[in-house]
């Protein structure tokens, strides 16, 4: 497994929103999915995950609902709200811009 990378400030929000774009998930599910999709580059611990979830919920981008997990445990799962969807588009575009800019910078150096 690759060494987990440091998360860029603000990237976590993007990761969470993107993960929830496909389906509602609870805390463990989100952490698992991020780790899975990024092949272990990003490992999100509960100490960053839960504060981020609550912050996003406060902003109205995601909405938590109590339900049952596959194993029958009572868990709170989060779904993207319409304004969260808008925010995701915005963040994606931002990320693309940053990504392109940094790539260009790196290409020039090389």
């Amino acid at each position, binding site marked *: 497994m690759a060494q987990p990378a440091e998360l860029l400030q603000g990237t976590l929000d993007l990761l969470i929103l993107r993960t929830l774009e496909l389906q509602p998930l*609870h*805390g*463990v599910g989100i952490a698992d999915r991020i780790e899975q999709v990024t092949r272990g580059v990003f490992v999100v*611990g*509960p*100490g960053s995950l*839960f*504060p*981020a979830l*609550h*912050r996003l*919920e*406060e*902003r*109205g981008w995601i909405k938590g609902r109590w339900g049952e*997990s596959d*194993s029958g*445990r*009572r*868990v*709170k799962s989060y779904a993207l709200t319409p*304004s969260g969807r808008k925010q995701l588009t915005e963040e994606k575009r931002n990320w693309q811009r940053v990504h392109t800019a940094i790539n260009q910078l790196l290409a020039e150096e090389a």
Partner: protein
Amino acid sequence: MHWLSRATIFLRRLLHRGRADSELKEEVQAYFETMVERRMGHGLTREEARRATRLEHGDPDRVSELVRAARAGAWIEGAYLDARYACRTLRRNPGLAAAATLSLGLGLGANIAIFTLVNTVMLQSLPVRDPERLVFIDNSGGKSGGSSGPPYPCYALLRDNNQYFSGMAAFKEDEFRVTIDGVEEKMTGQYASGSYFDVLGVRPVLGRLLTPADDSVVGLGGPDGPLAVISYRLWKGRFGGSPAVVGKEIRVGTTGVTIAGVTQPGFDGLTPGLPVDVTIPMMLTGNNLQAKRLWWFHVVGRLKEGAPMEPARAELDTQFKAYMDETGGRGNGYFSGIVLVPAAKGLNGLRRKFSKPLEIVMAIAGLVLLIGCANAANLLLARASARRNEMALRLAIGASRARLVRQLFTEGLLLTGLAAAVGVFLAKWGVSALVTLLAGVRGRIVLEPHVDWRVMAFTVAGGLLTSLLFSIAPALYAARADAARPGADARAGDTGAFPQRAGSGLVVVQITLSVVLLCGAALFLRSLRNLTGLDAGFQREDVITVLAEAVLPRTALKPGKETEDELARIGRMWEDVTAPMAEFAAARAVGASSLGPLSGRDRGILMSVSGEPDRPELDHGIHVNQATAGYFDVFGITLLAGRTFAPADGANSRRVAILNEAAAQRFFPDSNPVGRQVSFPGQMITEAYEIVGVVRDTRYETLRKAAEPMVYVPLQQAIDRLSAVIIAIRARGDAAGLLAVLRDRVRETLPGGFMSSAATLEQLVDESLVEERLLSVLANVFGGLALLLAAIGIYGIVSFTVVRRTREIGIRMAIGAGRRSVVWLVLRQTLALSGAGLAVGIPLVFAGKSYIESELFGIQGSDPGAIAVAIALLMVVALGAGSWPAWRASRVDPMISLRQE
């Protein structure tokens, strides 16, 4: 929408704190449980899995804490928790909370009360439109002291010929005898020009106010006849706020007037402390309006928007000087030019009188608050040392130091909040006590302080500053708590070195401030004593004075035989009223006079000595008192040369006068005045008066002010038309009975006779010492309070030391120290603290002496006697406070104290 959804979430969370918290816990817990189960799936036992999960992800509670901190309004929530915790802590120590609240509450209350008064007297602007553009148009004459506007013809000239003023108004406050529904009463009223309300921008709440048209016909007012405007106060208080008051007929003196309207609430005229209830047009004053050299009213003007002061003044000044040259009034040193005085706060008489005393009292109250702060700090510090364990424990389980300090400040704020509530309550009571103290026996100064934004800002700022001040020491202490050693100070040893040192410092501060306050208290008390015990040149025992008034015809008087006869007739009329009073057994002496000591009445004229070349350097101004022979008997004024008045000094005999010493010295520095002739230029009596006697000086205006030159003339040879005189009776026994007889005589024998302002001379003396009493009473009350707080402080710190040193004392006693030496050991600390406080305090007293010296009478600001008294009092109290712990220390049982470990 964002802020809305956030606000809803936040609100929901505040309202359902418990549920939100348990949900958060459950959510995090579920996460951890899942992780644990996963690990168990890999073959670990539950216990091992749990430990591994914790190692990787930390503690669930910690995660919840992080979430809470990330939430919106986390700080509010934190503050709420702090406050709740603080409440609990205070509830657990009700004694401490009460002591701290009381010491701070007293200090805050004193400050709020006095600031409310300062605000009313010094800071509040008149409730009129753009008060900062109002100016009084006064004459500048160094000698006259008080100031007033120009004579009426000059006022009219200035009013009609200027380019910088949008309006000018004249007004003259007076005591009116107002008859409402047949009942006559005295109230403060004023004559005002028709422009008055318009210039000030005062609006009616009912009816209409005076206009220039209402003030256009001498003796009548205007087309609607004589009108009056009444104050909101009078309307509510006397007419019950009835709208039917407009159009109602009342009488002012003998003139019937119709009430035209009621002024807006809060408007009391232009003299703070003297609320005006009835305003009638200037034209009703009669022939004063034509007098070219009579200075009798004030002028207020409104500068046009942006008009510069100096050119506005210069423009008026030029015309004023021309007027004075024309009427021959210039050059006597009294009326030399025009000055503009800002009028936003009204006439400054009250401010001038009370600014310094109030400033001093404010400083005293500030010191008391500081002492209260030191006390509260000491109490909290003592508790902080008891809470050291708690602090260390909280640090150890992850609270930050900042968080602990914040907690302590929250506690301080809560205490201050309680104290402020106590303070506001005390202040309310204090303000009414102060207002009563200032009003004196006859209610000369009427103040209606109200709480405005300044008072509220002062209270809040004072409270914040206070809580900051007294929370610093405990907070510093808490910040030093040692996380590594919770429970460390359960062992003796390093216990309490910091609170001990900080506490001692605070007690020294208390003693320092107390000694300053005590010195002040001693000085003001001595000063008041000096004034009350002063030989003012008159006897004050058993003397009653009243003001008797009559209504006289308002005909114009010109110098001549007719006028002489008229004045003599009036003088005789007053003598006829008073002389028979001497027949009563209870009356030892009876006198009538135009002026009386401390009566607040004054009359100044110019006097020249006949048969002598004019001395330009001589100040010809002199006070004149027109009196009966009995006057000198009633007040016990000693005759120094010649004779006093005799019954023979009547209307048709030779005119005679008596000088006081000051006048004799000024006008006749090298010769005997008796037998010389003097006259009073510009007055209605032009004949010369022969000086027949010289009497001792008496103080008139205040007890502080040395006697000024005064000339007495017999009542029957009066130079003024006296519509009012002061009747003074020296009574033995039934004074009230005498007054009742006199009241009937005045009412029955005089036209429009009316008697008022009855007071004993002792009451007048008391009333004239309002400032001094204010200072003395407050300095002593606060000095006592300071002493009490300092005593508590000393007791606290010394007891604390004794507890700390119990073991040491036990050892000392075990190896042979006597009880006496133990007592001395403890008292030595008290002495050291007091000594340190005195060492700082006494130089402060010397440094501050010039600040209060202007308020002292007959005593130096650094009077050794007063300082010695203050020191002695402080030492007695300090040793008293220290002796109880000292006694307890001497009872320490060595065995028990050593076994404590």
